[in-house]
């Protein structure tokens, strides 16, 4: 009962949230919502112990697939988004054949190379990928009305509700997976792959499963982004973006489900709102870099460790 109330209050707060923000902050909120899905799906991949540098490119695969489907085939946008996710997952399965021959650092760099190849292919083939300019004029989500609320997807508030709903469904699925025997097996693969294998776990299959599922959700995130801003190009999914996802995850901490989300929210607000408001527009990279270093030095277990300390203390008292 109390739990239900908390969830209702949380939902109401989310619905009210954009109305307390300025217009540009609403825009940032939309991108933040999408990035939460990207960084959470990234965490699922890291559960099996592998850190990929291809995640953002695979998100781009979903974006390109969804954009091209709506543009060239006239597929209804939400269907195209789902298909974008599925195609991203399929590409991940294909990539897993070479990539999962590697582990650790090799996997990290191998995944980077695979991602760069995909990006160069986008650049090189002007037909159908649009080359370096990418794809423009991507169909927006068609407006609709649910009686009490008219969705106008140009407005960040509307898109926030739409994307927020999808992201929450995706997060719920990710949470269910993590809390299931499948999630437990991911942990097992991470901590003692040999023992897991001796218990009958097909390591390759589980690594591939985590990679594919994570990629699928990243693909949906990419599609959400593409249909909002209406344009994507190979530069939208470059190493810089990947570095941001990586730092959100690590600064937030990957021990808990909420750690990466926390990292994403805190660092985005710092970088996009606080530093800009304070007038450090052109100094932002410097300060952001310093914040990264400070947080990793003084909070080696991530921002989540603060929350854990706090909840433990309140549990004791």
């Amino acid at each position, binding site marked *: 009962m109390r739990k239900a109330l908390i969830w209702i209050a949380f939902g109401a707060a989310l619905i009210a949230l954009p109305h307390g923000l300025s217009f540009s902050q609403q*825009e940032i909120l939309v*991108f933040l919502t999408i990035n939460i899905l990207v960084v959470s799906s990234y965490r699922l991949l890291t559960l099996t112990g592998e850190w990929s540098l291809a995640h953002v490119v695979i998100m781009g695969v979903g974006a390109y697939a969804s954009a091209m489907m709506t543009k060239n085939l006239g597929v209804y946008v939400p269907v195209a988004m789902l298909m974008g996710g599925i195609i991203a997952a399929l590409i991940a399965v294909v990539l897993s054949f070479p990539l999962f021959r590697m582990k650790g650092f090799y996997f990290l760099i191998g995944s980077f190379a695979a991602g760069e190849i995909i990006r160069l292919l986008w*650049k090189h083939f002007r037909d159908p990928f649009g080359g370096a300019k990418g794809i423009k*004029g991507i169909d927006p989500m068609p407006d609709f009305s649910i009686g009490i609320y*008219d969705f106008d997807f140009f407005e960040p508030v509307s898109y926030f509700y739409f994307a927020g709903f999808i992201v929450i469904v995706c997060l719920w699925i990710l949470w269910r997976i993590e809390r299931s025997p499948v999630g437990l097996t991911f942990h097992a693969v991470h901590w003692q792959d040999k023992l897991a294998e001796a218990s009958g776990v097909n390591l390759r299959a589980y690594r591939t499963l985590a990679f594919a599922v994570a990629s699928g959700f990243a693909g949906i995130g990419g599609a959400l982004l593409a249909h909002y801003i*209406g344009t994507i190009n190979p530069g939208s999914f470059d190493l810089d973006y990947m570095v941001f996802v990586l730092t959100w995850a690590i600064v937030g901490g990957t021990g808990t489900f909420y750690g990466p989300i926390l990292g994403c929210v805190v660092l985005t607000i710092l970088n*996009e709102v606080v530093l800009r408001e304070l007038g450090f527009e052109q100094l932002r990279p410097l300060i952001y870099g310093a914040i990264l270093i400070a947080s990793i030095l003084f909070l080696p277990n991530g921002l989540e460790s603060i929350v854990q300390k706090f909840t433990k203390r309140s549990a004791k008292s």
Partner: protein
Amino acid sequence: MISKLRAAGLTRRTFLKSTAITAVGASMPSITLAAGEPIKIGFLAPLTGAVAAWGKPGLDGCMIWAERVNAAGGIELEDGKHPVEFVSYDNEYDPAKARTGATKLIREDGVSFIMMLGGDTWPGVQPVADKTGMLFSTLLPSDLSPDSTTLLAPAEVHPIYLVTGVDYLADTFPDAKTVVICAQDDALGLPSVATYLAAFEARGIEVLEEPLLFDPATTDFAPIVTRMLSSNPDIICLDTCYSDYVHPICEQLFQQGYKGKMISATADFYDQMIAKTSKEFMEGFIFQFPDFDDPALSGDNINFEDANGFYEEYAKRHPGQWGAVSWEYASIMDLWKAAAEQAGSADPEAVMEAMKEGGTGKHAFGDAVWWGTELFGIDNALVGDWPVVVIEDGKAVIKGFKSIPDWYDQHGDLLIKHMQAYNQMYDQRG
């Protein structure tokens, strides 16, 4: 709430006003400027990151422009004089951040006009422009399309002005009959390649090889230069490259013993190129961007306000930083100021109307026409004469102004043919 208003049949113009009213704590757009209140102009370009060189120097130029205008009393509207103020937003050359920035500048800062670099960032801003009716400018006319009526390309008509350089080359050196082109493989390089191909074809100059495209991440240009020289061209065409590439390519050409002609869109910091090669080697280098201390720019045909003085001031404050973007944003402001004063208002719609009145406009390099329907699907590019600049005795000299529309009237079909081959026509760029 806003979406309901839209559903009730809101037009673009009233939309802008109504959102401004609903914006909590956001100041009103300058349409209803109080007397003496500053007019705000948005500057939405990369200020950090790898493309910052295309934004930051322009903002520096705008600051000088604003000081000069404000010192002279500001901009004269119906209700008196207003000072002008630039509000910048660093879009990091990212379409999503550009969208956020455009929203902030329009709905929160209440700017009357937004200048952008364009390119990758424009498509992200386009929906915002369409909905709000805000007036935008870009440096890259390839952003223009019939879908966006409020986007103007009033300064640089890249890449079409490149034809003037080729014309000059063919007129002056009729013996140069073969050319090799190299270009960076991106949104800047490709339309430029198509234009050069058309210009060379128009003058019967043979292009010896497929244009050599290189990735913008290239650091060592020796292999590309070796390849270019292997076919022994009379002319080397450097297309439109960032100066980060123009310099090392020229240096390599020099070191690998090239002796022929060179033509390029830009030669920013050409004094450094001379220092890295030799005066003799760079002699006769053709490009399109004059130094603003050039006496030809004090002529009566030039509309850029006190070009020589502007250059002097810029060189004093930012020594060694002068380049094409330094003046382009400022020249757009000249145009905007004239239009706003004519309209007596900073209202985007009124300014645009005044600017485009009669289909002609005062481009920095002389009176010009609003043009571009065939290439861009809309006549929002201000096209007229463009200077051909040649390095003579270590100094850039304007060798004359040539008309772009005249060239197009003769060879337009060639340009369209090559643009289509590179997927660069407005109806292909989707």
